[in-house]
């Protein structure tokens, strides 16, 4: 398939793999964090670890918006979804995220009107088509999806659609990364920057990583060759003693970002003073809420959600996994009390979460299996 196969070329992959191996100092262990859950998914789906030397270890970061959502926010969404007048709309992978009692799939099976959408604009269309119902969009995501929520709200305002509101759970990427970098038990050498987020925010926001913490960062695309090339670029920086932000995903990411999208976000959203992250706790100025101008379309206000806090399960070690201190299978409950069917911790929830990806694609080490082609 065009624009896909080119980026999955096995021959090129082997060449890049050899070049990475050539740069490895055999006595050193490299820990590279891919911030974004989409990258985690690619790494497992294509078996990228098999193409990296043993000394290079990939640590899966906090960039899965579904995983980092605290349970209390899920419960509040479910409470809105259960109201008889409401058509509740959300992205597909929200459906299985566990609240403290049930998940959205279960609530839907019990009869709540919950519809999976691909874009917030679909939710707005549903509102237009059902003027006697209240349509709520459960917004999640980093800066990747926030602009589409912003544009939808602008359109709702322009068209005067009043039976539509947004339960906003948008989060921002820089604060959790900074929180990780501030953590005393952090052991990372470099970062693979989140490609989709960067199409919106650009590369500039990552400059603090080399400047304040001495960690190189390469913004990467989502095909397997994109990731291999980004790892090579990081290894070159480490080898040459450089430390800077580089852009591998030039075909989609501008250094300054997408100014129009940022403008729309600035109009519709404002920063929350703090927000809870599953596995990471409270982080200051790390999430968005609707600005005062859009308060009438804010589901939190329309339904006066109480802001309940539900503590993460005690046995859960997601925080340690997120910081790269533990690998997924080293967690006490991995694969036993915590599985994709009954996730306990954040990282087992979505297929982009580090633990779920590890469980689904990489649970067993296959190095010993001879895998030659037919």
């Amino acid at each position, binding site marked *: 398939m065009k624009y896909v196969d080119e980026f999955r070329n096995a021959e090129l*992959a082997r060449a890049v*793999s050899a070049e990475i191996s050539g740069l490895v100092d055999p006595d050193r262990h490299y820990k590279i964090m891919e911030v974004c859950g989409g990258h985690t998914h690619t790494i497992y789906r294509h078996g990228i670890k098999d193409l990296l030397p043993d000394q290079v270890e990939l640590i899966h970061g906090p960039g899965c918006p579904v995983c980092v959502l605290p349970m209390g926010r899920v419960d509040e969404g479910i409470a809105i979804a259960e109201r008889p007048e409401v058509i509740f709309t959300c992205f597909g*992978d929200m459906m299985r995220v566990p609240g403290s009692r049930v998940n959205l799939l279960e609530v839907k099976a019990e009869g709540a009107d919950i519809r999976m959408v*691909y874009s917030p604009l679909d939710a707005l269309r549903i509102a237009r088509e059902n003027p006697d119902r209240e349509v709520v969009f459960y917004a999640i995501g980093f800066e990747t999806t926030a602009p589409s929520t912003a544009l939808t709200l602008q359109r709702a305002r322009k068209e005067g659609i009043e039976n539509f509101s947004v339960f906003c759970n948008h989060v921002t990427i820089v604060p959790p990364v900074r929180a990780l970098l501030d953590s005393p038990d952090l052991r990372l050498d470099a970062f693979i920057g989140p490609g989709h987020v960067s199409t919106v925010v650009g590369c500039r926001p990552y400059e603090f990583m080399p400047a304040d913490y001495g960690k190189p960062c390469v913004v990467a695309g989502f095909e397997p060759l994109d990731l291999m090339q980004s790892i090579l670029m990081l290894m070159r920086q480490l080898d040459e003693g450089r430390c800077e932000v580089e852009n591998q995903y030039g075909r989609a990411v501008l250094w300054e970002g997408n100014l129009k999208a940022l403008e729309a976000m600035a109009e519709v959203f404002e920063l929350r003073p703090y927000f809870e992250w599953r596995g990471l706790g409270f982080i200051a100025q790390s999430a968005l809420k609707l600005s005062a101008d859009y308060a009438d379309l804010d589901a939190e206000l329309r339904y006066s959600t109480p802001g309940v806090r539900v503590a993460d399960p005690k046995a859960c070690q997601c925080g340690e996994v997120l910081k790269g201190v533990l690998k997924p299978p080293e967690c006490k409950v991995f694969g036993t009390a915590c599985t994709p069917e009954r996730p306990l911790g954040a990282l087992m929830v979505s297929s982009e979460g580090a633990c779920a990806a590890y469980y689904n694609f990489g649970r067993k080490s296959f190095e010993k299996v001879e895998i030659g082609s037919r």
Partner: protein
Amino acid sequence: MSHGAGGKATHKLIEGLLLPALDNPALAPLDDAATLPFGDSRIALTTDSYVVRPLVFPGGSIGELAVNGTVNDLAVSGATPLALSAALIVEEGLQTEILAHEIEAMARSAEKAGVSVATGDTKVVERGKGDGLYVITTGVGLADQELNLSSAAVRPGDKILCSGTLGDHGAAILIARGDLELEAEVLSDTRSLTPLTQALKDTAGAGLRFMRDPTRGGVGTVLNELARDSGYGVLLWEEKLPIRDVVHGACEILGIDPLYVANEGKLLAVIAPEIADAALEVLRNTEGGEDAQIIGEVREEPARMVVMHTQFGGTRMIDMLVGDPLPRIC
């Protein structure tokens, strides 16, 4: 709801509730069709209910599915399908033309598959108590006593054959539901597999070890069941998987893995290595098997697991699906 998606939850429902209560020797193997002694021969028996939205989709409709699906459960158990029963549950308000269209579709598919619809039943339920039309078909066939098709017959080195492109039916349904605003020419692959299973029986004889039609849950689920039940590993080669560009594209956009997408006219067969190439050739020369491929093989290790050698040069595990496949956000 995930208990109906064909993955882990479905297994739990069957093995936790149904099997203990109804336990008997014909049910216990949990094959697509049960076989029962009848004089000197053996009868194959299977039943399935069809709940589909929308009722008509590109490339087929519920009537065709209800005939082909049940015929195929008989065919992949090695039996020769003889006759079907059909029960229709009609929701009050369903248009007569739609019902007529589906009856017509059933008649046409039955004729094509060489079976008769020998008995039937209709019930009407109140408006709002059904999705227009549910169809339940039961099929009877004559089992082939020469064949020993089971996961226990599978040996390391055996090849895994797939009769054609993967995911067409599931992708056609997803697109036809219209929630995704995707427009693409994908047709469901619903068809009777009898010509293909007959061709394999004739060619491979005792070298034919195992057959399944990878419907709900897709190829990934069937191969996981095979790995679990046989105790061996299954290795797939990603570059050998026959997947149409348009299905591949739709799956990429939706973040769904075609290995778990439903098929309604595809056959997975495990064949002894010495006869595999000949069997592939025969499949490719049979209607409905033109795109057949050898997609993998059975290995000693890793036991009870399915792994795939990716096109990119790595390996990954193909696990049992949990619930319905859900699209990813980014």
